[in-house]
Structures are given as C-alpha cells and as structure tokens.
C-alpha cells in the first residue's frame, strides 16, 4: 500500500504541546479550567491517534515529511503498525492517568500543580513523537525531550532525596542519550540514511566487527531507559516521584520508549536477517534473562511497595527484550504484546499503591496488614493485576508467557522457558505475601480505618483492571494488541 501523506501524526504530537502552553497560561488560580485542558489534551490526542488506526491495521502507513535541519537531521513522521501500537497504548492510558492525577494531587494538596500538569503534557507529546518518528534522529530528538520533560516530575517533591534521584536520573538517561547519538551518527556515516525500514538498512554496510560494536552502543543507549541490568539503577530511585508519574511514565511511557527504541534498532535498522547473520540475538537474550531473574530476586527484598513494583518493572521489561532478541515470529509477537499487557497490569498496580498512600499515608508493605478489609475494591484490583503478572490463564500476562514460550521453542533454546518459569515463581514469591497480608492478616489494634478512595482515583483503577481481564479473556478478537502484533511480525519477519 502506498503511504498516505497526512498531518495527523504532527497533530497528535501538537495536541498535548498546545495544551501544555494553555495549562501554564491558565495557571493555579483557575484550577478547574487547567484540569480541563489536561483532560481535553488526553482525549483529543487519543481521538487523533485512533483515527489513524483503521488504515494502519489494514497494512497502510501514514507519512509526514517534515523539516530538514541539516543533512541527516530530518524531522519526519511515519505511522506504521509498530508506531501505532505504542502510540495507541500510551495515548489510551493517558486518559485514566489524567483522571487519576487530578484526584491524586488534589487529595494530597501537592504543590506546583501547574508545573506538574505542564510537564506531564510535554512528556506525552514526546512519547507520541518517539512512536511516530520516521527515522532515528527524530526518535532521538523526542527521546531527549522526554528526558528533559520527565525531570521536573521526578524531582517534584524537591526534597533532598528527590533531588538526588533526579540527578541520578539525568546522569543515566543523558549518558544513554549520548550513546544513542553516537550510534545514530555512525549509522548515518555508514549508510547515508536514518529512515526506519521494515527489513533494516544496515545490510551490506560496514564490517561485521563494526556492526557488532555499533549494536552494543545502541543497546547501552536504549538499555538505560529499558532498564536492562546493570543500567537499571535510576528506575528504583525515580520512584520518589508522585505515583501517577511512576504509573504512566516509569511503568509505561519512559521505560517503553527505551524498549521501543531497542526494537526499532533490532528490526528496522539491523533487520532480522542481519541480526541472525551477526549472531546478535543470543547475547541480548542472555542479558535480558539475567535482568528478568535478578530483577525479580531484588524485588523480593523490598519493603517499600513502589520500589518493589519498580524492580518488578525492571524484570518485566526484559520479557519484551527477550521476545525481540529471540528473533522468531511467536517470540516477537509475545514481546510486543507484553508492551501492552505489562502496561495495563503495572499501571493498575501503581494506581493501587498510590491509592493506599493517599488514603493511609503508608508506603511500606509491612504496614499494610488487613488493608484488604478496609479498601476492598482497591486491593481486589491489585490482586487481579498481580495475578496477571504471575501469568495465570485468563489474565493478560498469560498470553505473553505463552507466546514467549512458543517462541523459545521455535528458536530452539529451551533454557529460556526455564527462565520464564523461574521468573513466574519469583513473581508468586513477591506478590502473594502482599495479597495474603492484605486480606488474611488482622490490622494492628487501634489503627485507623480507611475506606476506598474517591472515584477520581478508583475509576481509573477499575478501568485498567478491566483491561487486564479483557486482554486475557479475548486476546484474539479483531483490533486487540495481539492482532496488531501479528501484523507487525508479518511486516518485519515476513
């Protein structure tokens, strides 16, 4: 199908950027109008992205050829199936997150709310820019913009701890960015182009040694945000940010931007054939497996609920990397759908952690005995999402595991099935005590009773939990992530 020229990708980016400006202009005095802009931005962005869905779903591509700053730096956008997958997911989840954010910051009387909503809107623009980037340099530009825009959110509390975490965040991500830029420059000198292509652009360029070195550079670069060990250090520290930030950005948008970039490099810069020829898949898969196991083990030791979820994110992100690295159709599909599945599950878990904090002020698991009795709805949703993480059938985590296991068989590496099983057991080990304590332990005597939070907070939790269930029960009806992932796999592996 011929690419369709359209300005819609740009509009999708601008929607939240313009609203970011409106948020600042409206300011603290008219809070309701300011919050309206946030909701308006998230809805309009979602509608614009969704309007492009049908054509992309049927194999079409939207294009917008933009401005060339200097040779090599061309700002262009291209909406293919993979970009649509990420953009659709991020813009859809921004809607519940916006609602939740409003409830969260108002309940806690957070300071600098205008800055918070402003930075959040800019982040979402960057994420859509990353998703729709037509070439590496456009992706890099929005990737750096995302780094800069997330920074005020990480240090939102302005405590010494937050500032320290912010410093760590910048140190990691800017270093990663520098590696990406290096890789991009080398790619440009080698091939003279940076545009993503379904079967890669590096074939027949450069020596194998050079291409391997280049791949390492890219993996280090994107691996920072994708939290591949040992580059994950920033993620647990960044949990000092307000919970909606941890939920959408540090479980969905930012970390997935890293994974997204990595997959772009693997399939759209290198291409499957070159990856196989150079034998780059296996080392990456091993690195991912180590991250999966070690991340889960580290999660076991955490008492702070958000830190635990952060280590769980580290571990789960590498499922996606593993899927991409195995280079077989089922594994790739499994990795890509996990972008969506993990997003729904992890955002639910973070929302619940935030709801507990808003209602009780508690952050540590050891203080949460019996909380399921006073906040039943919240903890039921938490349990569903946690069970999904473990990979129990009829919840979406199972679909991922199934495809990854089939993929590992296709690739002929049974060992990775073992990795997945061990990880599932570890997931049980760190999630079940929380559920058990919440529902079956008695609360401490004299402790205050707390109810479920208000509906601004509760509604997003319930919506995301429904997502976890629906994606698990009916994974292969039309228009689901799995179908889209299959289309992507056909394009890059077919």
């Amino acid at each position, binding site marked *: 199908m011929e690419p369709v020229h359209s300005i819609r990708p740009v509009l999708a980016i601008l929607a939240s950027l313009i609203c970011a400006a409106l948020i600042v202009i409206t300011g603290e005095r008219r809070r309701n109008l300011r919050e309206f802009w946030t909701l308006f931005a998230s809805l309009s962005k979602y509608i614009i992205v969704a309007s492009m869905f049908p054509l992309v779903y049927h194999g079409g591509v939207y294009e917008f050829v933009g*401005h*060339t*700053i*200097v040779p*090599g*730096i061309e700002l262009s956008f291209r909406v293919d199936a993979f970009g649509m997958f990420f953009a659709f997911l991020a813009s859809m989840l921004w809607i519940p997150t916006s609602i939740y954010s409003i409830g969260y910051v108002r309940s806690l009387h957070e300071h600098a709310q205008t800055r918070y909503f402003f930075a959040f809107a800019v982040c979402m623009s960057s994420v859509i820019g990353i998703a729709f980037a037509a070439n590496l340099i456009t992706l*890099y*530009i929005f990737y*750096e*913009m995302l780094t*800069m825009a997330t920074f*005020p959110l990480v*240090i939102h509390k*302005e405590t010494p701890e937050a*500032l320290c975490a*912010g*410093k760590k965040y*910048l*140190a990691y991500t*800017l*270093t990663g960015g*520098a*590696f990406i*830029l*290096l890789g991009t*420059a*080398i790619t*440009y*000198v080698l091939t003279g182009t940076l545009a993503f292509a379904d079967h890669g652009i590096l074939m027949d360029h450069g020596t194998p040694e050079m291409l391997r070195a280049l791949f390492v550079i890219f993996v280090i670069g994107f691996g920072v945000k994708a939290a591949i060990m040992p580059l994950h250090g920033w993620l647990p520290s960044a949990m000092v940010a307000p919970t909606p930030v941890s939920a959408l950005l540090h479980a969905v948008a930012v970390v997935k931007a890293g994974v997204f970039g990595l997959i772009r490099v693997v399939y759209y810069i290198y291409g499957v054939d070159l990856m196989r020829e150079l034998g780059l898949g296996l080392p990456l898969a091993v690195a991912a497996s180590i991250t999966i196991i070690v991340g889960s083990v580290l999660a076991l030791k955490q008492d702070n609920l958000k830190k635990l979820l952060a280590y769980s994110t580290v571990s789960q992100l590498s499922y996606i990397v593993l899927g991409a690295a195995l280079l077989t159709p089922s594994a790739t599909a499994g990795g890509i759908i996990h972008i969506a599945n993990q997003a729904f599950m992890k955002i639910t878990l973070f929302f619940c952690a935030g709801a507990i904090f808003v209602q009780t002020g508690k952050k540590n698991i050891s203080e949460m005995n019996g909380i399921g009795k006073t906040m039943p709805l919240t903890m039921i949703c938490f349990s569903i999402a946690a069970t999904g993480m473990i990979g129990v059938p009829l919840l979406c985590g199972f679909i991922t595991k199934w495809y990854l296991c089939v993929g590992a068989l296709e690739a002929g590496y049974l060992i990775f099935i073992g990795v997945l099983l061990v990880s599932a057991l570890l997931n049980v080990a760190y999630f079940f005590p929380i559920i058990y304590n919440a529902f079956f332990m008695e609360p401490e005597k004299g402790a205050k009773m707390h109810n479920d939070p208000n509906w601004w907070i509760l509604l997003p939790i319930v919506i995301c939990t429904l997502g976890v269930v629906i994606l698990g029960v009916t994974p292969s009806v039309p228009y689901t992530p799995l179908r889209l992932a299959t289309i992507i796999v056909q394009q890059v592996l077919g």
Partner: protein
Amino acid sequence: MVHTEEITISALPAIAVLLPLLSTGPVSFARGAISEGFRDYLAIGVSVITFLAVMAMIPTLMGGKIIEYVLISKEVTPVEIAFRVDHLGLIVAIASSFVWMLATIYSRGYMAHEHAKDRYYSFMVLTLGAMMGIVLTKNLFALYIFFEMMTLSSYVLVIHEETKEALSAGKKYLFISIGFGLFLLLSILVTYMMAGTLNLDQIGILPHEAVSKLAYGTLFFAFIAGFGTKAGMFPVHIWLPDAHPAAPSPASALLSGVMIKAGAYGIIRVIYNVFGPELVSEIGVNTILAILAGITIFLGSAVAISQKEIKRMLAYSSISQIGYVILGAALLTNDGLKGGIFHIFNHAFMKGCLFLCAGAVIHQTGLRNIDDFGELGQKMPVTMLCFTIAAVSMIGVPPLNGFVSKWILCLGAIEAGNIVLVLFVAVLLLSSLMNAIYYMPVIIKAFFGPKSKEPVEKVDPELSMLIPIVALALGCLIFGICANLPLSIIELAVHTLLLR
C-alpha cells in the same frame, strides 16, 4: 586546479572596520561635548551600523562572490592595505558584530552606575573595530596588527573594575598574550620569507617540501601558540579564567563569546590558507593539534565542574567549547570543518547569552556564587529561562543550536576514518555530559531549590538588558531549527577552504 573566483569591489568591509576604529575618539569626548546619553547612543549606533554593514555583504557572498576593497594600494605604500571578505570571514563577522551590538545595548543598563564609562565605551568600539579588522582583512600581517590591537584594547576592558584582582588578571593577560604574540610575529616573518606573500586568498601558500617536516612542524606550532593563546587552548589557556570573569559582564560576554573566536579563526586560517590541508596532513601535525584540542575540551569541563562562581565557571566552559572548534578544524574533514565553524557561530550566541544572564543576576541581586541561586527562577523568571535555554543548548540537547554543531562535528570525526580521530566522537559526547554536570545544578537550584514561604519580588532587569538576553536565547532556538541559514554560508566557506 585553479579556481577563479568572482570578485566584487565594495566599501562595506572598510565601513565595518574603520567606522568603529574612527569612532573611538568621538565616543570618548561625546559626554564632555554633548551629554552622557549621547555617548551611549553613539556607541550603540556605531555597533548597529557595523552590524548592518556586515549584513549588507550577505547577498553578494551568497551569490558565490568575494568582496575585496583596496584601501591604500601598493603604489602608495610598500604593503598594500586591503580588505577581503570571504565566507569564513563573513560568518564570524556576522556572529561577532551581532553579539557586540547586543552587548553594547546591554551596557547601557548594566554600566549605568559604573565609573569611567567614557573609557569603557570608547574601548568597546575600538575593540569592535579591531575584531572586524581581524576577520575582514586580506593580509596575514594586517591580521596580526589587528590581533595585537584587540589584545591591547581589550586589556582596558578586563581591568575596568580597577580592583586588585582585575589588575593582576589584566597583567597576566597582557604578558601572556604579548609574549606569545611574538611567536606569531616571528612565524609570520618566516612565512613571508618562504612564500613571498601573506595574502589569505589562496589555499596553502607555503611551498611543499621546501624544508624538513620538523621545521614545518615547528613553524605550525609557533602559529598555534600565538593564536591558541587568545583562543584559550591548552596549555596556553592559563590567563583566561582570571581575565574573562574580571571584566564587566557585557565585556566578559564579548571576551568569551567573540574574542576567543579570533584565535580560533586564526588557527583555521593557518591550517587552511597558510599551510593548506594537504601540507598539514603530510607533516601530520593535525593529529597533535586534535589531541591538544581534546585535552582542552576535557580540562575546561573538568575544572568548570568544581567552580562555585558563576562567571568563572562560564569562563572554563569557554575553554572547553573552543576545543570543539579547534578539534573540528584539525579533523581536516568536510563535516569537521563545517561543525567547527558552525560552533564558532553557535557558541557566540550561547556563551553571550549565558554571560549576559550572569551579569543580569549580579547587577540585580549581587549574587555570584551558584550556591546562593535558590529561588532565582521565581525572582528573575525571564532571565533564568533564557539562561536555561542557552545552558541546555550547551549540553547539546535538540532542537537547540548546540546540538546541531555537535552532530556535525561527530559526523566529521567519524568521517576522518583515522582511528585516533574517531575516538574524538567519544570525547565530544563525554564532554556534553560533563556540561550537564555543571550546568544542570544551576538550573535546578534556580527553579527547584528550597523555597521560603513569603512571596518573592520579581527583579528581572530593565529592557535594555533584557532584550539582548532574550534575543540571544531566541537565536539559540532559531539557529537550532533553521540551521540552514548560517550553514548555507558555512558550506560555501568549507568549499573554498577544503575542496578547492
């Protein structure tokens, strides 16, 4: 291959050089003769006309022509006095005269309560004339004379405060500059004896294989010592961190943003016009120069990290940034040179903006120490926003102009193919991270630091100071997005210097 270039005769370069030089006297007497305001506006007017004269040359040069203007011909004096504007000279002249104009406007607010303003303004225009002379002259010897003139006249700007520190910084500046300036004079004389000409209109005037490689190498580094001193290159940078912060802030902006570029410009002229890229790579000195530039980049950034005083930090940052330019020139590749020249242009905007912002902070609040910058984002929102834009551009974040020159320099280093030179890509990227280490704390302190409960008073400076700051910050953004505007001139410059 002989390349014939079309030459247009125009008096514009003569205006750009002679008008400020000749205005020195009128500016210094203007207050006595008419009024204080008249003197300020006269100085501003001179800088504006100089800028416009430079801008007026753009259409001719964009058409691929070169401007020449013989002021005094050979029939009158033994040495012809002539101006020649090629694309390299033009791009440096545009950035210099623009920043100079803004700094002069800024001075009206900043210097309002300072002493010895007659001296200050007259030496501002004198130094402008010298700077224009350096970049618009045809002859290497004339370039040297303007170069020394700039050293002497900027000395007066450095010691303006007349404090003990300023005087000792000035002394250091003067001794080192003049001392190494002698190397320059000596090497120019040797060049003249060997080549028989000092005109800057050819590529490589020195004959190949006339003397040994060692002798040529010595000559090359004698040149580099002379120009490198002004550029603040390692190991002759030692005067810079004292002298740049000692001057009043608008003069610091010019010293750091514009005048060190005269040194870098000289180095480019030596490599490409005096020696020629072929001869330079034949004797292999460009690798040594690139290594020195790499050390300059690292050293400047590393020392900047430990600085607490804002202006000193900015001065060390300049050392590091000038290393980018010299590195670009030393790579001898198309993109390397392009990135280097573009960085001359971009750094003028970024560092000019940063120094003017620092000046505004000092002028409005008296704070010099970065640790005291808490709440500054609330007190001076516009100033600190512009500071942030310029600083983030320094770090090399897209879509600001610092990113574009960094990108082109990276391509240039990879293009060089030579493994030693490719390593400089890593130097460039590491240095941009180091920039983040010393610029981000300032921004974080100003915007996110601990706050007191009371509402703060807004103290952004008056418009004559604010407009130059905003203009430079906008420049960082505009030339990041529309980099093609300056690059179209720079590409022509690279074409003449490297590909002919």
